[in-house]
C-alpha cells in the first residue's frame, strides 16, 4: 500500500499538476497564508467543524432509519439533516480550497489527497442520489426501506474513509 501511494505521488510529480501546484505556490494568496502562522490552523478548524456538521447529520439520519432515534418522522428528520449536510458541504469545499491554496504542493502532489477527493466526490454523488431518490419516497412512511438503510450505512462508511484520508494526507509516503 505504501509503495502504491509512493509511486502514485511520484507519477503526480510528472504531470501538469506539478506546474499548477508550483504556480499556485507563487501566487499572492499562498504567500500571504505562508506569512500568517494561524491561517492554516484556522482553515483546518473550519474544515473540521463542517465535517462535524455533515457527519453528525448523516449519523442522525441513520439513527432514525435504523430506529435508534425515533422522535421525529422519517421525512422531517431526513429533510432537516439533508439541509445541514448541503450547507456544511459548501463550507467544507470552501475551507478545503483555502487549504489547497495555502499548501498546494502538500495537497495536490499527494496520493492520499486524491484518494480522499475520489471518496468525497463519491459521497456527494451518493448523497444527491439519496436525496433525490430514496428520501423522496419517505413521505408518509414510518419505516425506511432496506435499500435506504443500506445507503445510509454506506454514507457513514464513506465519511469515515474521507476523514481517514484527511488525516493521512499528513503521512503520505513520498
Amino acid at each position: 500500500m505504501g509503495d502504491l501511494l509512493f509511486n502514485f505521488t511520484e507519477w503526480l510529480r510528472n504531470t501538469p499538476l506539478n506546474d499548477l501546484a508550483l504556480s499556485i505556490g507563487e501566487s499572492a494568496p499562498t504567500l500571504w497564508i505562508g506569512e500568517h502562522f494561524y491561517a492554516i490552523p484556522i482553515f483546518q478548524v473550519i474544515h473540521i467543524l463542517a465535517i462535524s456538521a455533515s457527519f453528525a447529520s448523516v449519523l442522525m439520519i441513520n439513527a432514525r432509519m435504523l430506529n435508534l432515534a425515533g422522535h421525529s418522522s422519517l421525512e422531517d428528520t431526513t429533510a432537516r439533516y439533508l439541509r445541514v449536510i448541503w450547507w456544511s458541504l459548501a463550507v467544507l469545499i470552501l475551507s478545503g480550497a483555502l487549504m489547497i491554496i495555502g499548501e498546494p504542493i502538500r495537497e495536490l502532489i499527494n496520493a492520499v489527497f486524491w484518494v480522499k477527493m475520489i471518496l468525497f466526490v463519491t459521497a456527494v454523488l451518493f448523497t444527491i442520489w439519496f436525496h433525490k431518490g430514496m428520501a423522496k419516497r419517505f413521505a408518509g412512511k414510518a419505516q425506511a426501506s432496506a435499500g435506504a438503510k443500506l445507503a445510509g450505512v454506506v454514507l457513514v462508511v464513506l465519511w469515515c474513509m474521507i476523514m481517514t484520508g484527511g488525516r493521512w494526507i499528513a503521512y503520505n509516503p513520498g
Partner: protein
Amino acid sequence: MSFYPEPTNIWESIEYSSLGITIAESTWMFPTIETIHVIALVTVIGTIALVDLRLIGVKGHALRVSQLAKDTLPWTWGAFALAAITGLLLFVSKASSYMINPWFLAKLAMLALAGLNMMYFHMTTWRAVDHWELDPTFPAAAKVAGWLSLVFWLVVVFCGRMIGFTLGIFF
C-alpha cells in the same frame, strides 16, 4: 537493551513505558489512533452542536430540545469514550512533549470547562426543561449554556490543531 534514557519524571516514565514506546516506534499506530480520535471528536462536536444550536435559538424544525438531546446523547457519550481512550493512547506515546505544550494544556482546560458547563446546565436549567421547551424563546441560562458549549468546543478543536503545529518546539 533500552535505547531510552532513565525517566526523570512521571511523564517520561509514561512515555518510556512499553505501551508508549510501541506506539511511538510504530509507523502506523500513531496515525491510526489519531484518525480514530478525529472521527470520534468530530462525532462528539457535531452531535453536541446540534443541541447547542437548538438551545441558542436556531430552530429549523419542530423537534423538542429534550427529544433532540435523547436522539444525540448516546452518540455523544459513545464517541466521547472513544475519543478519551484514543486521546490517552496518543498522550502515552509523547507524554513529556504534550505536558510542556501550552496548547495541549489549554485543550485540557477547555475540555474541563465544557464538562463543567454541561454538568451545571444539567443540574440546574435542564431539570425544568419540560416547563420551558415549548416556550417561544428559551431561558437566558439555556442560551448562555449553549453559547458557552459552542465556544468551548470550538477552542478545543483549535487547540487540538495547534498541538499538531507546535508539538516538540517547547523545551
